[in-house]
């Protein structure tokens, strides 16, 4: 006989409810465990960045620091994240459409006394200056996708996006050995 939930007896309804609660609890536990493993994987991923990638990022950071007038920057770090999140650090206020927004990138940040020789400037104006230089790099091609120069620190901390990697550039290189 075909039965609907509305026709269940009280006992049957109780069993069904208990089963549903158990299933929900198992699902919630599963989600919690998988979230934890994602978080751990994220940490592990940062630690697992191949030396060749760190070398590439360091090279790009060194080149950009030198071009923009300070070959001895401090606090040079990189973090892997999405392109959209990277822009909140590097070029706050600029937004990308999809699919570019979801691409995996590295964002490199550094402090120094920069003169933006690599930046387009207002007609007839001198090169822009800033204390915080940020560079976004495509994680698969190492194409430089974005650059930001500001007198103010990034409004979003790079460390809020994931585990940061120190890059041995300039003064950062000498302090980190």
């Amino acid at each position, binding site marked *: 006989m075909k039965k609907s939930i509305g026709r269940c007896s009280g006992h049957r309804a109780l069993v069904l409810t208990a089963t549903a609660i158990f299933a929900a609890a198992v699902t919630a536990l599963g989600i919690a465990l998988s979230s934890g493993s994602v978080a751990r994987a994220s940490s592990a991923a940062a630690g697992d960045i191949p030396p060749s990638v760190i070398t590439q990022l360091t090279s790009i950071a060194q080149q950009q620091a030198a071009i923009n007038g300070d070959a001895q920057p401090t606090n040079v770090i990189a973090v892997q994240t999405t392109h959209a999140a990277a822009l909140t650090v590097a070029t706050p206020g600029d937004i990308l459409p999809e699919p570019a927004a979801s691409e995996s990138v590295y964002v490199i940040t550094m402090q120094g006394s920069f003169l933006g*020789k690599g930046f387009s400037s207002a007609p007839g104006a001198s090169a822009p200056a800033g204390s915080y230089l940020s560079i976004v790099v495509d994680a698969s091609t190492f194409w430089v996708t974005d650059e930001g120069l500001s007198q103010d620190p990034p409004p979003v901390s790079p460390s809020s996006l994931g585990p940061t990697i120190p890059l041995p550039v300039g003064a950062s290189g000498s302090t980190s050995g």
Partner: protein
Amino acid sequence: MRLRKSLILTMTVAGSMLIGAVWLQASAWASASCAPVNHCYGTARWVSTPATYGSGGNLNFQCLYTSDTGNFVNEEMWQGTNNDTEANSNWVEIGGRTGEPNGSSRYVFWADERSGGYNQHFPSGSQYAVSLNTTYNAEMAYDGSNKWEVDWNGYVVGYSTSNPPNGKFLQAGTEALDNGDRTVGTDSSLYYLDTTYQVHFGWSGASIWDYGGLTTSSWVGSGHNEVKWASAC
């Protein structure tokens, strides 16, 4: 006989004039003063425009090369924002570039300056590669809520937010950092959008502006619809 002599004389004078013109142009390029801290420009420039909500044109790249990829050379369009009549510190721009930061290829870039600092973007993908002798439409348009949309050849490449209207400055042409840079191109069908988004073709109030001695720029035809710029190539 007399006619032949006259013809030879005319050809000699014409030849001398041509050589003189080439020499003068070469001298002008040789005396350019482009530097990373003092960029050269070859543009059509319109300061204190009527209030605009955007602008655009069709960029054609005929020569775009730098021998020093630590520098860059652009062919591009600028749109002033925030009622900045000379784009001193409020603008959006889009165009094609070669050199820093992505080497000797030719690629699309867009950039802005506003209270938050200087930002520039180099979208990846084959649709953002720039080829010579190819025409690309570029447009920047106000999207409301202090946001400007930046478009390249039908693709939205990004948005500049926290960047108020109106536009009061327009410019199209080239920006170079090195005396050895080579940049030749045109920007045709120049237009702007008024604050009701009506399209107005021709930058009627714009003037030719060559700065730094690298380029010679001029209008093509009448109506200020098309500008061309040229360095040595």
